[in-house]
């Protein structure tokens, strides 16, 4: 040890809140609604540095839309957004019950994060491709052309499961809805989205890609490859980082969020970056449109860090009361995205408590009906699933001899 030097100490970040201790959310560095500027879509990446450390917000405490980011959106569109968020939350709640009833083996909610995927979906057009994680079910539920029954059949791994029972529940794939196949391996899709965007540019297409990742998964190497490739090739892609503060039990500081932001990574890689209130539906819509316009205008990629809070458990296999305060969400300063948009719509006379209750009941009935219909096609629990012969298909485009042989062996074994 050199003389006079004090011993080095390893720094291991900790959340301020643990079970029994309230979280101090001052680390979030929030801006007031309307406070943050809206640069032109032609902005060069370096000129977005300030935006990577502040927070784009539209809705104020009273639910009024203020500032330069107020999107052009009529009441009908916002009502559609509110209904999509409510539908997503009701769907999640119903599937959580189905998992507890052992009708499905596993589930992951997006409670508290509904605005991000549903709002973003409204900024994209048919033909764009999203590369989601397992917590963007709102991208599907925001669409009128995606039957909930198809989603529930995937969750139940039944005879009508579009993925033939091969995937864990929640790992949807729906090409026609611009929803890429979900993989269990974190971050892999982030660079694939960039490749998809590059392909669109190579072909002189007008379609764009939208990439999704959580705060924890930004530590994976594919996050960095995606930023590098997106920047190098100026790929038409929106790089969405959903910072819900938690990666299972690890606080976002352990992913590298302490004293910095995930948006700042984008600026460091030469990508225009925004940090946005993820529970503010209007801000989500405005920022998503800004990024989509940049991508479609050949102006390059945009990284958006969405600040939100994972209100529910990580998954049905997780108990958050073991690592964070039980009432944490109630203290999260950005609130509840559904309550905030409903407040705004009521404020402009485009929504009422009666409508809210009526919509809630209608959506619950819709989800229940979809669940009933899906149950008609069986479930993993009752054995109504794709036959084992389907297990050998789609490994390759055509089944090689060794798989034909293995399928024959299984069939012979089952016949006894």
């Amino acid at each position, binding site marked *: 040890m050199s003389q006079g030097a004090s011993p080095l100490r390893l720094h291991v970040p900790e959340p301020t809140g643990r079970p029994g201790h309230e979280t101090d959310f001052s680390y979030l560095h929030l801006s007031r609604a309307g406070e943050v500027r809206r640069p032109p879509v032609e902005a060069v990446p370096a000129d977005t540095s300030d935006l990577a450390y502040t927070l784009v917000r539209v809705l104020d405490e009273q639910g009024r839309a203020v500032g330069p980011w107020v999107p052009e959106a009529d009441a009908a569109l916002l009502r559609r957004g509110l209904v999509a968020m409510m539908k997503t939350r009701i769907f999640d709640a119903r599937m959580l019950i189905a998992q507890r009833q052992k009708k499905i083996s596993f589930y992951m909610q997006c409670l508290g994060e509904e605005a991000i995927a549903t709002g973003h979906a409204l900024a994209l057009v048919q033909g764009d*491709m999203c*590369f989601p994680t397992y917590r963007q079910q709102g991208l599907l539920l925001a669409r009128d052309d995606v039957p909930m029954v198809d989603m529930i059949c995937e969750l139940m791994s039944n005879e009508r499961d*579009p*993925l*033939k029972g*091969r*995937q864990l529940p929640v*790992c949807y*794939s*729906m*090409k026609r809805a611009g929803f*890429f*196949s979900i*993989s*269990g*391996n974190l971050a*892999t899709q982030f*660079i*694939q*989205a*960039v*490749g*998809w*965007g*590059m*392909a*669109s*540019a*190579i*072909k002189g297409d007008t379609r764009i*890609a939208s990439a999704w990742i959580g705060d924890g998964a930004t530590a994976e*190497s*594919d996050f960095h*490859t*995606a930023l*590098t*490739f997106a920047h*190098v090739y100026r790929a038409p892609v929106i790089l969405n980082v959903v910072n819900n503060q938690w990666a299972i039990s690890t606080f976002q500081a352990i992913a590298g969020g302490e004293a910095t932001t995930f948006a700042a990574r984008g600026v460091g890689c030469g990508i225009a970056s925004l940090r946005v209130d993820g529970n503010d539906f209007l801000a989500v819509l405005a920022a998503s449109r800004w990024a989509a316009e940049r991508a479609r205008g050949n102006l390059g990629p945009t990284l958006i860090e969405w600040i939100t809070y994972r209100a529910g458990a990580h998954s049905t296999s997780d108990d958050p009361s073991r690592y964070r305060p039980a009432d944490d969400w109630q203290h999260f300063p950005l609130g509840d995205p559904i309550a905030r948009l409903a407040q705004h719509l009521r404020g402009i006379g485009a929504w009422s408590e009666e409508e809210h209750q009526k919509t809630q009941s209608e959506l619950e009935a819709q989800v229940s009906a979809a669940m009933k219909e899906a149950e008609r096609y069986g479930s993993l629990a009752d054995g109504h699933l794709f036959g084992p012969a389907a297990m050998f298909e*789609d*490994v*390759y*485009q055509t089944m*090689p*001899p*060794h798989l034909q042989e293995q399928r024959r062996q299984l069939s012979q074994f089952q016949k006894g």
Partner: protein
Amino acid sequence: MPAMTMIQALRSAMDLMLARDDNVVIYGQDVGYFGGVFRVTEGLQAKYGRSRVFDAPISEGGIVGSAIGMGAYGLRPVVEVQFADYFYPAYDQIVSEAARLRYRSAGDFFAPITIRMPCGGGIYGGQTHSQSPEVLFTHVCGLRTVMPSNPRDAKGLLIASIENDDPVIFLEPKRLYNGPFDGHHDQPLVPWSQHPLGEVPEGYYTVPLESATVFRPGSALTAITYGTMVFVCEAAARETGIDVEIIDLRSLWPLDLPTLVASVKKTGRCAIVHEATRTSGFGAELTALVQEHCFYHLEAPIERVAGWDTPYPHAQEWAYFPGPARVGAAFRRVMED
């Protein structure tokens, strides 16, 4: 027919596919303007433009990951990893994504990509310019693993690989780039222009995947091999005077089982030869297959000649590389049993 080196044959395959299919794109480290560190992509960017043939950042995971995304869009990317020794950062994308995409999405998406990697030793490449990692791909369901041993097969197999809708790992033995190599490192290189397999048709043709070839017909013993070791086996047969039937697998997995089985049933003896390390190497799978399918025809235990279970050394190259003397000794043992 013009004489081509393996480098020229591979380039010819990509040139032809770039011309035939607008969805073919080629990229990788140093692949664009410079034409590749082995010259395999030389001139292609000038001919087809930067949007079809381009340089990539030094990021194997990024190269393969972006190719999967392009494949999902509808392109047919042919990407290069500069040395097979450097594919490891892309392994997650290869195993968890490219190989599984069709299966996990029930055909909704797939990855029609070809990943080219120069592989193999015999060039004083040391630990990270000599490896033969084929078994790390053959073990992965959903991948096709291919390795040519000569210019004619190299072109036909690469065209077939690019056209195939499954992800293909295309391993190129760099020791064979300029001429056949039989392990006699002390002798001058014979160029491909002096070998019949250096005669390569200029136009379009394919060598089908999952098809092995009888490289040298024989009656005494079957040698199952691929890549550089095909020529080493040929030299060993000549030098021992044993009438070895040499099977060049060409497609490692899925493979052409009937050709192997027919040969071993005919000869009753089998040696399996590869450069890669022995334990859990691809030779173990081949041994198991021959044992399962030819047990009652075997007159001797199956021999495996492989690289030692060590990292690939620099100074001890020729003690490591399974040359004709070691392979010949194994052939004799099989005949004596």
